[in-house]
């Protein structure tokens, strides 16, 4: 590692330093800047250091202006070094915080990230805190590491190796004492040696899983050299840095071999097989040769024991130099996908029950097959595997038993994913002793507890099926019932605390609408907007929200609280009854106790919510009256700001603005004279007529329009 001078320990001036290496992010840095401004940790408790690695876009000036106007932001400009190692080191050296949080320039932090990470770090005396990372863009991924909080994780036991991104919080003195820094200059995989070394040296590694801390935007056009084509030879040169760290910190033996096996497969064999469909034979050949050379040099045969069966087969082909065999196997493996047929979705006692036929199939749709023989289960590959492959790698007995079939609910806005294990019953034999990898699966979940014991927050959730038969894990969007009308509820919803309605998206997939988000969330795809609004058993339009009396309801700040006074219709209650008020905005929700008193014509609900948990923005409001009562939205929203008075706005939010040139008033977006119900009726008619041939449908439409005109005048 490059020499960090471990001079006398500097006392920390702030709790956390956020270090951000920056190179030509353009507008992609704005969400990060916003998310830093919205942190619930007071600005005086943390600093942000942007280290600009010679950007050539308008970023340097933008950051300078930001730093000039924001006391807790610093900018360091350095000549371009070509990769993020050097700017990160410069930032760590300049940091004055007790902890250093590394963030990349186009990612985002959850609003409460720094506050929670720091509190967790202090509570556990952590050297490293791994906060839950959520991917935005690309396929979703749920690391098993984040299934629960792990205040003291053990490297080698807890599944830490899966999470080698540097997006973590490190105790600054810890990095300095152990001289842990990044390799500098344009080299790949610079984060692995750094994070590995930190994991090896740390006394306490803590994993914070109960809050999405880090939003990782995986973009194709990531800045720096990311878009460059891989030079395999180079790549494996840099991988040697990582392997060096493993060898430096481990004795020969199990742990070392397991770590080596991890890199051999995940960055080597697995990668090579996955790229088969996307690369030319010449590119694959280069990759093959480079990996083979590395294997001969750095991965002794003892490593292979720690590979799962298929990876062992890949390794056998590689070590034997059987390029064609490995490519053929790779083609089969990478074509494996999810097989799924939705049977039904029903809601019984507010519990969802989703039944589907699921499994894994090959590219042609035929199911994977296993042979049961002498108490063991063997994979029957659809092709002849090359001669170097030993028969024992086909023994899937252990793997087959550990298969997992899951349903995933992914929040469209926060990208947070909740998994539900299915109860899977394998379909019967196709021939004596031959079992298809196909299951009659029932997934059950209670929307009140499915989010790690918590209710689903208001949002639209896309539903996926994930099937794991290690080494193959495949996921796919759950397809709706054949012929299910788009944007319509698939079944009755549940409506305990929240209204949860499954519906079919315009692309024929299943999604869940929680608390009418398809209606309320302006960011939700316009397409899905009417999903649940037009009748059926779906939730009603948002007007269902409780009316708030305008003349006596208000909000004000009072010391460090925002005090809310809401006058609602309602029968007399016992004075002083306990209630709860919940404010919600994007991924954040703040809930507080409220008191209820009688008032003229209704009730008065009063709550004081912590102002520092309510960063600038528009918050929707819901009230729960009494123990166990469901939260009901009220027709009001709270506008918070650091520069303007706090405002309670009653009624429903208006939409859209109009801009006209000289002498012209642009029309508001609604078609004039067509009230909502009429446009809705029109859409319903359109749908009904959809079953007719176009010419006939047009005639009907015309006749209906004429009738409507006569009736309405």
């Amino acid at each position: 590692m490059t020499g960090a001078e471990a001079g006398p320990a500097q006392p920390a001036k702030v709790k956390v330093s956020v270090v951000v290496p920056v190179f030509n992010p353009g507008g992609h840095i704005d969400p990060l800047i916003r998310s830093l401004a919205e942190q619930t940790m007071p600005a005086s408790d943390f600093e942000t250091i942007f280290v600009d690695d010679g950007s050539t876009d308008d970023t340097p000036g933008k950051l300078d202006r930001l730093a000039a106007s924001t006391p807790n932001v610093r900018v360091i400009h350095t000549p371009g070094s070509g990769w993020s190692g050097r700017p990160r080191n410069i930032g760590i050296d300049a940091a004055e915080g007790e902890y250093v949080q590394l963030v990349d320039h186009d990612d985002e932090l959850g609003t409460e990230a720094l506050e929670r990470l720091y509190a967790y770090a202090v509570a556990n005396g952590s050297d490293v805190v791994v906060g839950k990372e959520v991917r935005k863009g690309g396929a979703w991924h749920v690391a098993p590491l984040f299934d629960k909080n792990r205040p003291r994780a053990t490297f080698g036991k807890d599944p830490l190796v899966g999470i080698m991104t540097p997006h973590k919080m490190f105790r600054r003195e810890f990095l300095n004492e152990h001289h842990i820094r990044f390799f500098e200059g344009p080299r790949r995989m610079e984060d692995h040696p750094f994070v590995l070394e930190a994991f090896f040296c740390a006394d306490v590694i803590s994993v914070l899983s109960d809050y999405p801390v880090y939003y990782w935007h995986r973009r194709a056009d990531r800045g720096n050299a990311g878009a460059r084509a891989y030079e395999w030879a180079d790549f494996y040169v840099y991988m040697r840095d990582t392997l060096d760290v493993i060898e430096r910190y481990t004795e020969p033996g199990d742990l070392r071999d397991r770590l080596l096996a991890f890199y051999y497969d995940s960055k080597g064999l697995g990668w090579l097989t996955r790229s088969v469909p996307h690369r030319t034979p010449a590119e694959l050949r280069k990759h093959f040769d480079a990996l083979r050379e590395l294997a001969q040099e750095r991965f002794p045969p003892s490593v292979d024991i720690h590979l799962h069966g298929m990876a062992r087969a890949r390794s056998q082909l590689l070590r034997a130099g059987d390029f064609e065999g490995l490519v053929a196997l790779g083609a089969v493996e990478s074509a494996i996908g999810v097989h799924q047929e939705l049977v039904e979705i029903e809601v019984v006692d507010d519990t969802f029950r989703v039944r589907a036929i699921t499994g894994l199939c090959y590219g042609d749709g035929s199911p994977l097959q296993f042979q049961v023989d002498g108490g063991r289960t063997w994979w029957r590959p659809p092709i002849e595997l090359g001669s170097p492959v030993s028969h024992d790698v086909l023994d899937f007995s252990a793997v087959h038993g550990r298969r997992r079939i899951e349903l995933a609910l992914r929040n469209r806005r926060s990208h947070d994913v909740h998994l539900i294990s299915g109860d899977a019953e394998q379909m019967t034999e196709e021939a004596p002793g031959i079992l298809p990898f196909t299951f009659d699966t029932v997934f059950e979940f209670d929307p009140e507890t499915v989010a790690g014991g918590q209710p689903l927050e208001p949002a639209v959730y896309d539903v996926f099926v994930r099937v794991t038969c290690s080494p193959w894990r495949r996921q796919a969007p759950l397809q709706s019932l054949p012929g299910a009308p788009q944007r319509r509820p698939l079944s009755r919803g549940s409506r305990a605390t929240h209204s949860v309605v499954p519906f079919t998206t315009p692309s024929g997939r299943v999604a869940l609408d929680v608390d009418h988000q398809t209606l309320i969330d302006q960011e939700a795809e316009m397409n899905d907007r009417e999903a649940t609004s037009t009748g059926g058993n779906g939730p009603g339009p948002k007007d269902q929200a409780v009316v708030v009396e305008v003349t006596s309801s208000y909000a004000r700040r009072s010391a460090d609280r925002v005090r809310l006074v809401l006058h609602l219709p309602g029968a007399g209650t016992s004075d002083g009854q306990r209630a709860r008020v919940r404010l919600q905005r994007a991924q954040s929700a703040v809930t507080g106790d409220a008191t209820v008193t009688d008032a003229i014509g209704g009730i008065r609900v009063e709550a004081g919510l912590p102002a520092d948990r309510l960063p600038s923005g528009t918050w929707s409001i819901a009230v729960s009256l009494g123990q166990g009562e469901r939260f009901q939205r009220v027709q009001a929203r709270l506008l918070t700001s650091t520069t303007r008075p706090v405002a309670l706005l009653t009624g429903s939010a208006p939409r859209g603005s109009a801009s006209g040139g000289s002498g012209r008033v642009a029309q508001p977006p609604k078609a004039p004279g067509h009230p909502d119900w009429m446009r809705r009726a029109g859409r319903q008619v359109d749908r009904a007529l959809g079953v007719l041939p176009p010419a006939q449908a047009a005639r009907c439409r015309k006749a209906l329009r004429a009738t409507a005109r006569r009736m309405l005048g």
Partner: protein
Amino acid sequence: MLRHELLSRLHELLSPRTYLEIGVQTGRSITLSRTSTIGVDPAFSVINEVSCDLQLVRSTSDEFFARKAPLAHFPEPVIDLAFIDGMHLSEYALRDLINVERHTHPASVIVLDDMLPRHVDEAGRGREAAKKRRAWAGDVYKVVSTVRALRPDLVCLEMDTAPTGTLVLLAPDASSNALIDAYDDVVEEYVVPDPQTVPEEVLRRTRAMDPAQFLAAPVWPDLRRLRQLPAGRAAPEVRRVLASAGLRTPD
């Protein structure tokens, strides 16, 4: 003089580069503008002809000001003339004033409507009592005493217009925090059940000025000229011009 006439004459005399109107409704007041204009109303239904470069925003004023660059439609993000006539509850009007003033220059003029109701019935927070009188002014008159108490630096002129009286504020100070600092306590005093106790001075318009006399004051060319100066240099000049024309907050 009708309040729309006052507004119309102000447009002529000031020839503002920009005009912001909160509360547009049918467009009866915005139709008077000939300059770059933003109108804000969550439920406008404009029926009047409009002859200006107009952006019509379908939003509450609070949400409008919460936007990133609310005044982006203007050639410059400064309000030369503002007409505050939105939600007729005092806390809303006070917020509108606070938010508008942030975007003004010392030579800007702020007009608030319905500040001098004619009867207690008209000045309720609820509209019930006002129904028998056809007009509802609301309790926005409370802003007058707040401004008089907290902003001695502002020139605060009540205008004897018909039907309800208006308030004209001169020499605004975009950097003043006096109102926003007091806002949270003031709200508590504002939100009280009807009927309201409207001060005699308001109902009887004892401090109100004849709008014709105000419009005749020899300040308009100076205000137009001073708009060109940076705020820091313009502020004392504006005060001097107003004082020598005898325009000051009456006792």
